[in-house]
């Protein structure tokens, strides 16, 4: 399982705490997230784990905690 942590605007659109079955790649992860949380089809989001951004072609080892982040708006 991957525990999911939503940030920013997505905290108001998605559950505070959620998890999904283990995914093998970031591509699979994105697809599963959009199927599980349909609002993500209309909201741009970036992914990270363990303090690092995930890239589209990255693999997953399983059980990572996943950060799901809308566009940034600091400053």
């Amino acid at each position, binding site marked *: 399982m991957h525990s999911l942590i939503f*940030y920013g605007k997505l905290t108001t659109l998605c559950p505070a705490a959620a998890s999904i079955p283990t995914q093998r790649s970031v591509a699979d992860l994105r697809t599963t997230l959009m199927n599980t949380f349909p609002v993500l089809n209309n909201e741009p989001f970036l992914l990270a784990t363990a303090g690092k951004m995930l890239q589209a072609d990255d693999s997953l080892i399983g059980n990572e905690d996943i950060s799901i982040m809308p566009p*940034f708006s600091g*400053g």
Partner: protein
Amino acid sequence: MSSSPKNIFTLGPITPAFIAESIAKHQTKTSIGAHDLFLGQVRADVKDGHAVEAIHYTANEELALNICQEIREEAFQKFQITCLHIHHSLGEVKTGEICFFVFVSSPHRKASFDACEWLVNEIKEKCPIWGEEKTAEKSFWKENHG
């Protein structure tokens, strides 16, 4: 190999006293001939007819510190600067208060000007920080526009 990330976060506003103290600390660094500072201030934009009273900032802190460290290291490679400091608020910052402070020092002014502008743009674009603007009526998620 990268060094461990420096904290950039301050709970609440960045105070004028803190900024003044930061400047004063550089008086012993006598190779410096120029400082450039950027101060981001919370603006009272009007949303749905109501003025923004504050912005509440949140972040993916671990990721933000790692990214800021990468930006910091790239800045030292790109510009002839002596030192740089990055501070950003978390939690509530009221309109008129400072939420973002970038401070760059160098022997000559051009490097400080160039590095400070580059740093502000990089941090706003790449650091996972979010602002939620609060009016008397409701909240709006802030969006950065260039």
